[in-house]
Each structure stands twice: as C-alpha cells, then as structure tokens.
C-alpha cells in the first residue's frame, strides 16, 4: 500500500511542498490542506512544478480549505481531485500511513 502525504503550508511560504514532491515515491498520494491548498490553483508560479508531479503521484486538495480562502473548484489545476473531509478520511484509511510535511 502506498503513502498519503499531506502538505499544509503555502508553497510560497515554505519549501514543504517542494520537499514532499521530491521525496514521495511514484504512486503515492499527496493531499493539500490548510494553506497548502494554494499550490492547487491555476496561474501560480508553482503550477508547472505541480503539474509535473501529477505524472508520478496522485494529488488531492481539501475543498473546504479552498472555499474558506475564496477559491472554487474551477480554479484548481486539472488533474487534481477536490475532496471533502470524508474524502480525507477515506484517503487516510486507504493508505499504509500518513506522512505530514509541515
């Protein structure tokens, strides 16, 4: 079973997303939560890096955190799945472990 990685900080504030993507194995899942959701949006300076990662890992973003920050699913990079808290729980249950990148 593969690992669920979570990233909770903005890619512009910290290099957590960068490190996570660098060290996650192919086939792993990455869930963007809290300020981490900003990496899921189109038009940013990290969009290229994130799209590149979609070839190796599955990327998810927590919908409620996007909405809280004023963004709808329509502004999410194509290929990233939006999940709610129930989806977060499912992802955690489906993976061998959860590794948080703070």
């Amino acid at each position: 079973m593969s690992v669920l990685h979570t990233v909770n900080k903005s890619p512009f504030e910290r290099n957590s997303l960068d490190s996570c993507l660098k060290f996650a194995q192919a086939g792993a899942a990455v869930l963007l939560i809290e300020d981490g959701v900003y990496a899921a949006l189109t038009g940013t300076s990290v969009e290229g890096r994130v799209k590149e990662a979609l070839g190796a890992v599955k990327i998810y973003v927590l919908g409620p955190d996007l909405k809280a920050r004023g963004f709808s699913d329509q502004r999410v990079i194509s290929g990233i799945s939006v999940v709610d808290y129930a989806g977060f729980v499912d992802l955690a249950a489906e993976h061998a472990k959860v590794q948080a990148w703070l």
Partner: protein
Amino acid sequence: MSEIIKKFMYLNRKAPYGTIYAWESLEVVLIGAAFDQEVSLMFMDDGVYQLTKGQDTSGIGMKNFSPTYRTLGDYEVKNVYVDRASLEARGLTQDDLVQIAWEDFETEEEVENIVEVIDSERARELMAESDVVFSF
C-alpha cells in the same frame, strides 16, 4: 489626544486561516485606530490572499473575518496597498480582491475602492517613509 501623528504601516505577508497572523493583524489595526495615527496597510507575498473575494469558511469551522476588511474605511484607514508582483506570482488580479469603500465624514468625499495595487518600487518607498512598521 496625541498631537504627534506618525505613519503606521501594518505589513501583512501571511495567508489567512492557516495561521492566526492575518486575524491578529486586523485586530491590531482596529484597536490601534483609537490612537488616531496615519495608518497604511501593506499586503505582499501570501498576505495578498487575505483580501480575496468569496471567502466561505463554513466548511472549516473558523470565523470568516474577511467582511471586516471592508469596514476599514470606518476606522479611518484610507491606505491599503497590494504588491502587484505578489498577485501575479499567485495568478491573481485586482478583480479577485475585495473592494473597500471609504468616505470622509466631514467633506463627504467618497472613494469606491481604496485598495491600490502598486509596484515594488512604490512599496519600497512607502515602507521606507513609514515611522513605524508592524509586521505580521
């Protein structure tokens, strides 16, 4: 009542909700309004995210404080600056940001939107000419 008026700048560089900085900064602005100084708010880096429209926090169980930005005019804040480069790096434009109205109660002069998107050179000048900078 103080006769000394200083230029206070509140520098906001962090996204809302993930940490408490954005909310605390706003609270200090509101409380500090009691001192009648010349207040400016500067938003750069992830701070620009504080001003996005359409924030709906019902799903995360936190208070949505974005409506409070729109009342800044009532607290005599007339200067709200947003760094253009920070917006661009995040794929945002001024259309993504709230509008803050301001009215001078004596002259009844009305400004539809005091949010000003500025370039780095202007941001540099504004910070340099502030007497006090509060960083959040």
